[in-house]
């Protein structure tokens, strides 16, 4: 039970991180028709810039400043690079963001080196947010913070006590993601700025003739999307690992999320992020082999297959390909994605 709870919370947390990235990507896509291939690079930049700022001014300042810096970089990229190739069509737009991934990766290695940097969360967030204690007699109980080690162990062999801590960084990540979500939603639906953005999204010409500077709106949306990625980077980088490979690891998953959710659909991206986050987290923590799972389902593998590496593969090892399998299945059975509206 406590395994299930903690794993679902971890999955939810990973899913929310994915959504922090895919929301910006989806917003940019639905507005400008550009799939920003370098979105994960902005995520990585956020982590590294956040690391540098936190060395100088502390984590909390970095949490505010780094997304602003990354957002400004994103806006500048839109203004001076992306806008120039806009007239050539969508393929060059995708290509220039593809070129940017190379440049960002190399610049990061140039400035911060090729190995991971030690980006630790602040003392307040280190340690568990709460601990679930499963006592075989007293049952499941919830304790805030860490629990004393003597509570988790017992000399009595008949008793079984399992303590499952939930890291505070993960809790913080969920908190930030949900706050961010709520504020984007409020901004888009309840404010004048949001109305202009929505208008520029669906009817750019009409919005322009009403006197709104649509290219500037595009630039700001691109910057905001990059800034959101940067925010995710500060949190993701301090929770997980800040290394040059982090963009590539998360990047392709985010694209899967966006396609599975349906290109351009924010709610689709939300569902797909949570789905992939939870599926992958559960898969990673299950240590059963494919052969044994099939066996317990009553299907024996052919003798020639038994003992091959395919049968010995554990679900945890298969976990990395699950998002891509989901992508392929979705494309076969529901080509427009979970909540996508247009066929393309």
């Amino acid at each position, binding site marked *: 039970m406590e395994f299930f709870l903690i794993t679902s919370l971890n999955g939810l947390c990973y899913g929310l991180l994915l959504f922090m990235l895919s929301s910006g990507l989806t917003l940019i896509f639905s507005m400008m028709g550009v799939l920003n291939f370098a979105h994960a690079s902005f995520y990585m930049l956020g982590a590294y810039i956040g690391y540098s700022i936190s060395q100088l001014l502390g984590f909390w300042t970095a949490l505010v400043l780094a997304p602003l810096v990354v957002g400004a970089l994103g806006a500048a990229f839109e203004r001076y690079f992306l806008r120039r190739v806009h007239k050539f069509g969508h393929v*060059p737009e995708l290509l220039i963001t593809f070129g940017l991934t*190379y440049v960002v990766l*190399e610049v990061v290695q140039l400035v911060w080196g090729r190995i991971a940097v030690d980006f630790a969360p602040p003392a307040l967030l280190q340690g568990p947010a709460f601990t679930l204690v499963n006592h075989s007699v007293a049952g499941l109980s919830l304790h805030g913070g860490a629990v004393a080690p003597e509570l988790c162990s017992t000399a009595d062999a008949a008793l079984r006590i399992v303590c499952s801590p939930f890291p505070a960084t993960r809790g913080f990540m969920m908190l930030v993601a949900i706050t961010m979500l709520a504020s984007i939603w409020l901004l888009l639906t309840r404010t004048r700025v949001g109305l202009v953005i929505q208008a520029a999204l669906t009817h750019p010409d009409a919005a322009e003739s009403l006197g709104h500077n649509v290219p500037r709106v595009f630039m700001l949306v691109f910057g905001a999307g990059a800034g959101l990625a940067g925010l995710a980077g500060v949190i993701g980088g301090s929770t997980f690992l800040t290394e040059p490979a982090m963009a*590539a690891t998360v990047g392709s998953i985010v694209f899967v999320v966006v396609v599975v959710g349906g290109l351009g659909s924010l709610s689709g991206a939300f569902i797909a992020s949570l789905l992939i986050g939870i599926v992958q987290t559960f898969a990673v923590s299950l240590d059963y082999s494919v052969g044994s799972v099939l066996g317990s389902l009553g299907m024996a593998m052919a003798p020639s297959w038994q003992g091959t590496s395919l049968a010995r593969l554990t679900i945890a090892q298969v976990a990395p390909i699950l998002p*891509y399998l989901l992508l*392929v299945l979705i494309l076969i059975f529901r080509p427009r994605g979970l909540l996508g509206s247009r066929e393309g």
Partner: protein
Amino acid sequence: MSATSYTGARWGSVWLWLVFALVMLVMPRIFDSGLSITMLSQMGIAIIACLSYNMLLGQGGMLSFGHAVYTGLGSFVAIHALNAWSGASPALPVSLVPLAGGFAGMGFAVLFGYVTTRKSGTTFAMITLGLAELVFAMSLMVPEFFGGEGGVSGNRVVGAPVLGISYGPAVQVYYLIALYTLVCVVLMYAFTQTPLGRLLNAVRDNPERVEFIGYNPQRIRYTAFIIAGFFAGISGGLGALNFEIVNAEVVGAARSGGYLLFTFLGGATFFFGPILGAVLMVLAFVMLSEITKAWLLYLGGVFMLMVMYAPGGLASLIMLNLRVARHGKLRVLLPAYGLLALSGAVCALGFSALVEMVYHRQLDAAMGPVLRFLGTSLDTSSAAHWSGLLVYLAIGVLFFEWSRRRFALQWNAVHQSMEDERLRAAATP
């Protein structure tokens, strides 16, 4: 009139093919060191791969991020075929092993293309990316087929020599590769002239109208994808023969990205563009990566500049200047070109010196603060060197921007006058 120019054009292209074949024939005589023969072989392989990639990108408008899947799986099947069938009983001559790779690439294209080509544009790009990740992740999971970390190795010198060819010396493999390259390039060029090739261009430009005249764009994309997969597989099979070892890297994202990058740099809008791109690719991978550790940075920067200023790649730059030369106006532009090249060289020098200094601090700091750069020594601990280079680079950038604007003005003027000439010629009967 039209008939004579048609045959004239046809003879012209035959001459071009002969020159192409001749160049491939004599190249290993001119550059006969071991390194250059390896590079020439790699160029042949890359030419087939990039041309097959351009069948998707340039001719079909399909931006694929997973072309290495087809070359790579072709390599794996080819090396397994070599190991299984080309031994004592010569069921499969070594010369035909690349074809096994080709059919493998085709088979996987039939399988994966069914999913990917259901979509076009951005979605297609994302799906190919996802599939490439899928195959790469699989390659580490199934060591029986992919050989795990070490890869699968083979031996191409098996069976009795045919006509004295044992494929022991590298130059014999080169000529095999050259032969395959010639045949594949001719076939791929012929493909662009077929109705299917033309329809593929139409699908790229306007799929709705293709649908209106009764074709299924999805089916056309799928067919082209399969054909591209076949040639990609041949290239992979040749790679397996050339290196005699295949590891999971050949299906990796970096390889796919390389095909995309260099096909575009060479020029996706002309048939010969990817050939230039492939030659550049081998030069960059083998030589540039030797010279500097920051080569991917330079490559990415050049790529972004190309996307912004010359989306047709090198091939389009060549063709544009040939057109200017044909009008006898290249001479007018030469001074501006000179300035542009000079200021560009100034900028490139300053920028790369700075980059190398940063890299030196980052990676080789243990070897002291001084680094050798193009015959001079730069001291990464001296503020004067840093600030001097920064000022130099700033001046260089201003100089470049000034000459770029000057060049753009002249270029536009030349094109305007060429356009006027054309209109005048059209107006006079």
